[in-house]
């Protein structure tokens, strides 16, 4: 188990290095932050001075080496625009983004598991049919467009909820609903398909033949086995949610790190972009490891040697 964890961590460190190098190099070769930071009338001396101050006069490998060395000390450079440590800027906005991600995962799972299971238990019932049609719309509608439709309905027409900013639960409803839409649809389809598969297995027939209550068969024996592949998909979806949060944060002016990313891309503020990438990569390591551990917990056949 320990060896597995160490191997996994080393592999993720490799992913880290590749991500940071790729992003760093591409950023160095495109765009010139000096042009954005100085007024157009700035003299050549001012340009040179700022270049030296930001370390942009060095060749790229020196810049990357310096970046790596300081990254190991937890310092990912200073934002050109805010003149603050880039990592601090990103971490300050991380809780707001995680708030969206966690609530979305919770709400979608709570809605999707019972609906998907019930649809599979009663195939071709009205519930099954409406779940299928609903989930088709859900996986087909683009997330950002759902956000706009929700604003048109609940903010502009009904005037029920706020459309922007972070605050009480009423600020959370629309952004989370926007992100939940697709995931509920996807999860329902997965749970339904998984349940249909499991319900046809021999051990379910055995459990029924033993005279177990139908509810026990379905929820103890069938649903539990359906959840195993679901954990992986859930993990991947959670990572993807961090990306989709960028979209939601733009629409609802949510003060998360996704919005910071969009602003920083526009300003060519690349220390912030790199810090965002590193923080996101770290989140994936945590999510992936959690998924692996959950796997071992749910399915006792899996032991990591």
């Amino acid at each position, binding site marked *: 188990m320990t060896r597995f964890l160490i191997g996994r961590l080393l592999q993720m460190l490799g992913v880290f290095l590749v991500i940071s190098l790729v992003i760093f190099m*591409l950023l160095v070769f495109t765009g010139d932050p000096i042009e954005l930071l100085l007024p157009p009338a700035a003299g050549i001396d001012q340009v040179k001075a700022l270049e030296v101050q930001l370390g942009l006069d060095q060749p790229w490998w020196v810049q990357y080496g310096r970046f790596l060395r300081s990254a190991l000390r937890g310092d990912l450079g200073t934002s050109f625009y805010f003149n603050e440590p880039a990592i601090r800027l990103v971490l300050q906005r991380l809780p707001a983004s995680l708030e969206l991600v966690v609530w979305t995962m919770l709400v979608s799972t709570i809605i999707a598991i019972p609906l998907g299971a019930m649809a599979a238990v009663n195939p071709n019932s009205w519930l099954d049919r409406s779940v299928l049609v609903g989930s*088709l719309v859900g*996986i087909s*509608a683009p997330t950002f*467009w759902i956000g*706009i*439709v929700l604003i048109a309905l609940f903010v*502009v027409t009904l005037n029920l909820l706020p459309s922007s900013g972070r605050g009480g639960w009423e600020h959370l409803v629309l952004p989370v609903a926007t992100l939940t839409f697709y995931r509920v649809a996807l999860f329902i389809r997965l749970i339904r398909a998984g349940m249909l598969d499991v319900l046809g297995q021999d051990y379910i027939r055995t459990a029924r033949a033993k005279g177990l209550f139908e509810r026990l068969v379905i929820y103890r024996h069938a649903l539990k086995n359906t959840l195993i592949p679901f954990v992986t998909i859930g993990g991947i979806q959670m990572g993807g949610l*961090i990306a989709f949060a960028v979209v939601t944060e733009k629409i609802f002016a949510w003060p998360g790190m996704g919005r910071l990313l969009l602003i920083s891309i526009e300003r060519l503020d690349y220390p912030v972009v790199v810090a965002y*990438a590193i923080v996101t990569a770290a989140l994936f390591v945590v999510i992936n490891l959690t998924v692996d551990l959950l796997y071992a917990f749910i399915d006792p056949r899996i032991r990591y040697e």
Partner: protein
Amino acid sequence: MAQTISEPQPGTAAVVPRSARPRAWLWRAFRSSPVAIAGGVLLVIMIALAVLAPVMSPWDPQAQDLSRRLVAPSWLSGPHPLGTDAVGRDLLSNIFFGLRVSLLFGVLSIAISVALGVAAGVSAGYYRGRLDALVMRAADMQLSLPFLLVALAAAAIWGRGLDKLIVVIGVIGWAEFARTVRGSTLAVREKEFVEAARALGALDRRIMARHVLPNVLTPVIVLISVAMPRAIVAEATLSFLGLGVPLTTPSLGLLIDGGYKYLFSGSWWPSIMPGLALMFLVVGINLVGDWMRDALDPRLHGRR
């Protein structure tokens, strides 16, 4: 797309032992499913609108007229059936051309994904060993990163452009195809006909292209039906974020981005309408994809 639907690939017969004439059998399965027909009809309509955009459009999509900005939809009568956007461009014409861009984007980027993924998957599965380990490790790494996030990063760094975005989304999509194709190749390479071909002295290249490839294409078709809607939506999403195609390209995502600021002044059509068109296109592909998945997956036969 229409081609793919009505014409099963050569590999179908080998993987689906159901019938000697897979074409007839697929068509029967299609006709007997009302959902598949509805999806097929929807998809054909959307493709027709996209292809015929220059003929069908009542206006030049780029023609701006500030005296006619944010005109409400007039539906069946009047000059602008779906209204105009914030700079007075006809929305219906822009949606037609936007569908064209979406569809073109989906087809081209998936073509790149399939070409890269199938080539990598077949050679990894056929040669095994070091190459296999390398390809699969790379695929694992790619798949551990969420699709949209990689697209977002790549697009942010590389800059706007339809061609760049096609390449980015196409390249990111390789891993899934590679993994699936490699799995099928591992099974196929042990078959007698491959051994026979080798005994007859066929070169590896020929064996892979003529004997392995046709027999691993069925799961590829199923994957395409999943990957294409995702690619199309990714283009719209990135364009909406301002990281996709340039402002002059008639993209549905750009239309929605340009329109949603006017939501609060009561103009809902510039953002809602293009999204609806995008959704119809994706629903069509998904419905047809669902049917193909059921029809081509031999494990599901006999059920339902």
